[in-house]
């Protein structure tokens, strides 16, 4: 008998040949289909390409023709036929301005009714003789447009019509076809052939000789499509090999795919056959193995098919029934061992017959002897049903308490043959009881009210209240138990808070707040309530509430709050007062400054000039002090507003550097600048404040440095898209001691009082600088060593911008050239000194003064002369500057003044004034004290 072929071989023999045949057939059909459709697509593309070419040229010619027709009917062109005398003045310009074609080379001509040229462009030298007059018959004779596209070029002639008939013609000639075609990239070659087969155009000009004869024999292995157009033939051709290049690469791909498919299929078939055969073998093995070992269910091979799994289960069930019988003995001992209780079986002579695992464990933990067991047995035979015994722990372990009970041991004949002792370890139970006792005592004697409520359905009746609760609230325990909401409604707590509390209870949430409550005797108290939910096994079972009488704390807190508010208000008032006082100081300061300028302009002897200079220096110092105080007050009063505008940082740094370089030179110390703007000249920030900080630090450095030098470092750093400006001013001056270093930033502080005497100053500068830095999103820090020098460094947040800043913003001190002008100006100002100063400064102009807004309005209405500008003080008696401005803008001073430039003059340097002035309709703003230059610069802007 022949050996039977294996299942694996049988499967392979059947599957593989069929699979290979099918794959080969599919491949052949696919290849044929690809080539068929590729051929069709190429032909279509060629036709499209030709259509596109045709359309392109037609559109070009038609649009050019339409353009020409439009121009031919242009009235200026027609007029030029009539206006023989003057047409030379405009016709050539008009003609030259015509751009009718995108062609680089073209000829254009405008012709008279009889074909004589009126004006032409590149006509005689470019247009072939055969085309020069071919259009006349059609265009001039029949008044019709003519178009020619041929071997000699393209020509379009449109009639210039008058009374429906041609009185002239506009003719365009383009020599090459190429100029009519938008060259695009093609897969093939586009050609245009003349009637007699010469090549007029080729998209790949390098491959064909223009004007040569097209030889079809050269292109036998090419795919060629053609299309007639006018007298020409359009061709599209492409080498077959190129045309099919798109699909040729598919052949190897197809071949590889086929081979891969064959390999994969063969492998898959083999694997499938192997899997099937293997699975059957595994089932056999596993069943075979289990019946041998009988030690549990058979191995379940991974990914076993459902059918085999069912077979296996059925087999296993059968096997299990067979084995269960042998298990009961083992189970019994397992059950005994699994009991928590200690179990000892004693015979009548108290000898141990059987013990469980728990007994063994306890014996190892405590001193439980066989005598103890006999004694217990004796006690239980005579005494009560239960007895407790305490046993010393072994090796320092805690003692163990066991509660014993006993059962008789009956044999199969119903005769008692001994006892079964059952022991419960109640050590833990006992210690819990003790703990509860302690806690309960603590709760009872606590000086905190405690209530416990138990969840009963949706409500929480109180089940416990401690004595302190009764003591504080006056409600006895009997009045409390069973009540809801922790009695807070009886204590007349605020309704809203009560609602919140109830809602917390409903949702099982904790709640805490301070409530205003009333005791039983109706006396008021602040009740700090803390209510917490108690969960057991994730279930809300209880709430515990702690009440505390916090009446005293509450009252103290309220008192402190009031006190703080009063203190803050007082500080604000003080700062505000200081700020406004500084303004008041500025006004007379301005007066003095102006008066000094005026005196300085008069003849002075040497001594007088020196005194005036002294006075000016003192005044400048005073101004700085007032400015400092003003800034400080503004910061304190929260009235300081910062700008965020683009400015030229490089220019600002340079200006600051130049300014202090002079003082350094005078003092004989060096001054170096390290500046790296990282290519950002313009940034967004507050240039005034930056300048103020730098100026302050530098003037300190100059002031306190006698030898060595000063180093200014400025750079911009960027991190995660944010920009910061870092700057430091380092000097080799007197330095600051460690103890003083932090306090120098406090207001009115200098390093010590002797410094104040030696160097002067308000001591506000650094404090202001630090606050400015903080307001600008940065910090100012100092590092110093007494006697060696100091380094002040700060950083501020800035924004980068691509915009170019208005350079004037940063360089307020740059010299401005004031143009010469003469104007009639009205000054509205109540302060006589200021009036006088402004008048003096504006000596070369016509000036009229008014003491307040009302006077100004009257004067403007009454006076015959017209003013060019008004300088307007803001704060004046009777009618202030804002009101006066509004009235002028409303036309109350007459129509002619509705738009007159009004420039505010004010000592009120606080931010917000500018907005007020603008809102009132003023055009500009000059801050007092001002110089003659300030006045003239602003006035020049409006009057010159």
């Amino acid at each position, binding site marked *: 008998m022949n050996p039977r072929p294996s299942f694996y071989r049988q499967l392979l023999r059947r599957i593989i040949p069929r699979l290979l045949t099918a794959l080969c057939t599919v491949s052949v059909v696919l290849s044929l289909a690809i080539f068929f459709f590729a051929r069709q697509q190429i032909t279509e593309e060629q036709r499209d390409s030709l259509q596109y070419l045709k359309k392109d040229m037609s559109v070009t010619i038609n649009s050019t023709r339409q353009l020409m027709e439009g121009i031919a009917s242009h009235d200026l062109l*027609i007029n030029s*036929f*009539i206006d*023989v*005398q003057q047409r030379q003045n405009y016709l050539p310009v008009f003609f030259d301005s015509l751009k009718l074609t995108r062609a680089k080379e073209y000829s254009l001509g405008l012709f008279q*009714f009889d074909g*004589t040229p009126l004006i032409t462009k590149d006509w005689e030298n470019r247009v072939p003789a055969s085309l020069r007059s071919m259009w006349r018959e059609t265009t001039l004779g029949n008044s019709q447009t003519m178009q020619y596209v041929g071997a000699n070029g393209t020509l379009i002639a449109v009639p210039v019509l008058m*009374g429906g*008939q041609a009185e002239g013609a506009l003719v365009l000639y383009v020599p090459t076809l190429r100029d009519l075609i938008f060259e695009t990239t093609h897969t093939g070659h586009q050609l245009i052939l003349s009637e007699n087969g010469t090549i007029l155009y080729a998209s790949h000009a390098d491959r064909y000789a223009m004007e040569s004869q097209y030889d079809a024999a050269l292109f036998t292995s090419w795919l060629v499509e053609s299309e007639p157009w006018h007298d020409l033939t359009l061709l599209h051709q492409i080498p077959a090999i190129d045309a099919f290049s798109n699909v040729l690469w598919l052949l190897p791909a197809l071949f590889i795919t086929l081979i891969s498919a064959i390999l994969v299929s063969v492998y898959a078939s083999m694997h499938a056959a192997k899997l099937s055969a293997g699975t059957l073998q595994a089932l056999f093995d596993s069943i075979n193995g289990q019946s041998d070992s009988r030690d549990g269910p058979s191995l379940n091979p991974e990914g076993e098919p459902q059918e085999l799994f069912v077979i296996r289960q059925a087999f296993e069930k059968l096997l299990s029934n067979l084995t269960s019988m042998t298990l009961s003995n083992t189970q019994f001992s397992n059950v005994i061992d699994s009991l928590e209780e200690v179990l000892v079986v004693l015979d009548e002579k108290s000898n141990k017959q059987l013990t469980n695992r728990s007994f063994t464990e306890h014996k190892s933990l405590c001193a439980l002897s066989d005598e103890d067991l006999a004694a217990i047995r004796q006690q239980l035979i005579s005494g009560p049903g239960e007895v407790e015994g305490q046993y010393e722990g072994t090796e320092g372990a805690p003692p163990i308490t066991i509660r014993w009970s006993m059962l008789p041991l009956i044999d199969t004949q119903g005769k008692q043959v001994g006892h079964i002792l059952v022991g419960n370890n109640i050590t833990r139970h006992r210690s819990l009881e003790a703990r509860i006792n302690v806690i309960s005592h603590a709760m009872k004697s606590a000086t905190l009210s405690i209530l416990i409520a138990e969840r009963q359905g949706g409500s929480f009746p109180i089940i416990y209240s401690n004595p302190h609760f009764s003591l504080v609230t006056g409600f006895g325990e009997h009045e409390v138990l069973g009540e809801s909401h922790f009695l807070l409604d009886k204590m007349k707590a605020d309704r809203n808070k009560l609602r919140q509390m109830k809602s917390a209870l409903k949702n099982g949430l904790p709640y805490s707040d301070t409530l205003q409550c009333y005791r039983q005797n109706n006396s008021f108290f602040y009740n700090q309530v803390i209510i917490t939910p108690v969960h057991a096994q994730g279930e809300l079972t209880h709430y515990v509430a702690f009440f505390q009488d916090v009446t005293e704390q509450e009252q103290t807190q309220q008192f402190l709050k009031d006190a703080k508010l009063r203190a803050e208000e007082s500080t604000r008032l003080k700062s505000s007062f200081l700020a406004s006082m500084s303004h008041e100081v500025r006004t007379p300061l301005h007066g003095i400054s102006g008066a000094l300028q005026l005196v300085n302009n008069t003849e002075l002897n040497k001594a007088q000039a020196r005194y005036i200079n002294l006075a000016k220096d003192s005044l400048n110092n005073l101004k700085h002090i007032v400015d400092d105080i003003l800034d400080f007050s503004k910061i304190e009063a929260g009235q300081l507003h910062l700008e965020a505008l683009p400015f030229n940082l490089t220019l600002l740094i340079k200006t600051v550097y130049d300014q202090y370089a002079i003082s350094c030179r005078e003092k004989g110390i060096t001054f170096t600048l390290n500046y790296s703007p990282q290519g950002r000249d313009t940034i967004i920030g507050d240039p005034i404040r930056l300048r103020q900080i730098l100026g302050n630090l530098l003037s300190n450095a100059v002031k306190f440095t006698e030898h060595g030098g000063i180093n200014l470092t400025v750079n911009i750093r960027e991190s995660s898209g944010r920009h910061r400006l870092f700057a430091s001013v380092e000097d080799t001056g007197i330095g600051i001691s460690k103890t003083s270093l932090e306090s120098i930033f406090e207001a009115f502080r200098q390093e010590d009082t002797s410094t104040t005497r030696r160097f002067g100053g308000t001591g506000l500068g650094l404090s202001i600088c630090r606050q400015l830095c903080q307001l600008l999103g940065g910090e100012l820090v100092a590092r110093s060593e007494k006697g060696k020098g100091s380094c002040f460094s700060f950083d501020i947040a800035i924004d980068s911008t691509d915009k170019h800043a208005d350079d004037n913003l940063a360089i307020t001190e740059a010299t401005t050239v004031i143009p010469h002008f003469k104007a009639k100006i009205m000054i509205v100002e109540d302060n006589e000194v200021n009036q006088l100063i402004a008048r003096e400064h504006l000596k070369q102009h016509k000036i009229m003064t008014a003491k307040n807004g009302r006077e100004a309005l009257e004067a403007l209405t009454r006076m015959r002369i017209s003013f060019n500008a008004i300088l307007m003080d803001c704060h004046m008696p009777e009618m202030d500057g804002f009101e006066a401005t509004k009235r002028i803008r409303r036309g109350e001073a007459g129509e002619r003044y509705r738009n007159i430039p009004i420039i505010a003059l004010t000592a009120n340097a606080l931010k917000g004034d500018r907005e007020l002035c603008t809102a009132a309709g003023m055009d500009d703003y000059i801050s007092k004290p001002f110089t003659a230059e300030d006045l003239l610069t602003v006035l020049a802007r409006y009057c010159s």
Partner: protein
Amino acid sequence: MLFRFTSLLLSIALCSLMPVQGKPQVSTPIVIALDADMSAVAVDGGVAIARGAKLAIDEINEAGGILGQPLELVTFDHRGNPARGISNIKQIAAMKGVLAVLGGVHTPVALAELDAIHGADLIYVSPWAAGTSVVENDLEPNNVFRVSISDEEASKVLIQYARNRSLTKIALVLERTGWGRSNLESLTREAQAQNVEITTVHWINWRQADFGSELEVMLESGAQGLVLVANSPEAVTVSQAVLASDRSSLPVISHWGLASGDYVSSLGLENVSRMDVSVIQTFSFLKQNHARAKALLQRYFTRYGPDKPQAIPAAAGLAHSYDCIHLLALAAEKAGGINAAKIRQSLENLPPFTGAVKTYAPAFSDKARDALMAKDFFMTTFDSNGHLVPIANSASHL
């Protein structure tokens, strides 16, 4: 290159060859060459001129022709195109027996032709083209004579009419040609002399399609009326702009170019009636009702069918042309030939002659080439049928 003149109308108006004393006449005709726009923009003017000439020639030939020879009208159409005009003159120069060229409506054509006319030593008589420099052309000898309005004279009448209507601020609208420029000069001078302010001057191209923005500027300038120097198509463009504005009754005082074409039918009678248009004229069958004019009217009705006297299109052109031919015939008879120099001399020394327009006493002199002067002009306006009728008391007092 040979080019066919498809547009050339070579119409020959042969006068009836009347037998003189029973004997058949075999002499070559004397030619009057009409060179005018017969088919483009001033057809009414061209036709009126041709008809006036034909009626005069009929009359002359009925009376035995000139110097025993029949007079013949050969018409050339220049379509208002100067180039065509010059071409026409060259053809006329090549013809034999030409007594004179009778011109058309267009000043630009006449100006362009001057060199060719004098180069061929042709006598040129203008029954219409008004450009001052057509006659005052600085050529020596000057072969141009005119029985028509001259811009120089017309300006006086136009400005005086504006003044009479209390229009002290006017705007000028002039065609952008030699004719427009000719008027700018004379109108500016007259306005200054008569204390009328010219607020703005606007130029309009031939075949310009829109005049709205120019009119807006004009109205803003405070002009109370406008003086229009343009032919019919451009006059229509300007009128349409006036009608579209909120000042449709703005006084339009027009030179007579407006009357040379189909202004009324192009604009529409209803539109014309909404406007205030007045046109300078020299002749109206309603105004000139003396025997000669009546006889002309009669001949016209006989030949071209009866109608209302005021309905005859461009009647002034008809009358001018009619008088021109008679003056030429008179000059030829006097000169005893058609030699240009002799005809010129003869025209300069004509005896008084009563024509349709007026009695010329005499028509020309060696200095005065214009037969009509400001005092012969008057203003007309359109009646409800779109016919020009004289405005009472509008005759010039100059």
